[in-house]
């Protein structure tokens, strides 16, 4: 179980690094799909089967298809133009700042006091327990989510229209 976690975590980290450091956005998108699949495998290890399936369908399926579609629609041929750097050392400064962000996160995580783990609830993470929670405790957020998706659909259509009358 732990070796599987290390393998999947290594795949996620390497593919995540390739997303950041690939020149062409198309290759970044393809490596991001690998990253999402690795994370979905880790979800399976953590007894979150429903979330793993949703991750593959929504992220690796729908969202990445949308990304690839837009990349091909915009038809960006040349890789990122390197010479027009706004100021020297932006990359170095960015990596240093991101390293500081990571250090702060590690500090906060290491300060966290973990309570004792509870006893195992039967059937954690399967569709039935998620559905029961979704339609009892989280009913209002669930309905608000549907409104949010409607707003997003309308917004995307309005923004992508070529001419507004």
């Amino acid at each position, binding site marked *: *179980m*732990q070796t599987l976690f290390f393998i999947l975590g290594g795949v*996620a*980290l390497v593919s*995540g*690094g390739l*997303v*950041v450091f690939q020149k062409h*956005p198309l290759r*970044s*998108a393809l490596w991001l799909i690998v990253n*999402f699949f690795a994370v979905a495998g*880790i*979800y399976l*290890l*953590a*007894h*979150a089967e429903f*979330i793993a399936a949703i*991750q593959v369908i929504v*992220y690796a399926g*729908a*969202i990445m298809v*949308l*990304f690839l579609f837009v990349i091909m*629609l915009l038809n*960006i041929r040349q890789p*990122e133009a390197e010479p027009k750097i706004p100021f020297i050392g*932006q*990359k170095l*400064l*960015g*990596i240093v*700042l*991101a390293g500081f*962000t*990571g250090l702060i*996160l590690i500090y906060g*995580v290491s300060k966290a006091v*973990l*309570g004792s783990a*509870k*006893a*195992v*609830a039967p059937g*954690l*993470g399967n569709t039935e*327990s*998620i559905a029961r*929670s979704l339609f009892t*405790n*989280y009913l209002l957020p669930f309905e608000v*989510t549907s409104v*949010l*998706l409607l*707003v*997003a659909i309308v*917004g*995307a259509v309005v*923004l992508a229209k070529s001419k507004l009358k």
Partner: protein
Amino acid sequence: MVVPVQYYLALSVALFALGVIGVLIRRNALVIYMCIEMMLNAVNLAFIGFADYFKAVDGQMFVFFVLTVAAAEVAVGLALIVAIFRNRGSVYVDDLNILKW
């Protein structure tokens, strides 16, 4: 052999920091969006790790909602990028400087 929650948190922090690096050093708006998705994914991983640790389903519910918001955000964001590309002919954030004094 169960995976400790600290491992989930360590991987989550590493993925989040990678996403921050991408947002800070890349100029292509599409790649910046992908890195934002990677950061959202890292947060989801922390939620799942805690849900497994506390044996509670609530963490998985939050991942569900984060996924929904991410899908909505990507739809609107990519439409925005397409609109910007139509207006300015570029998706590089360096070229979007008309608000710069």
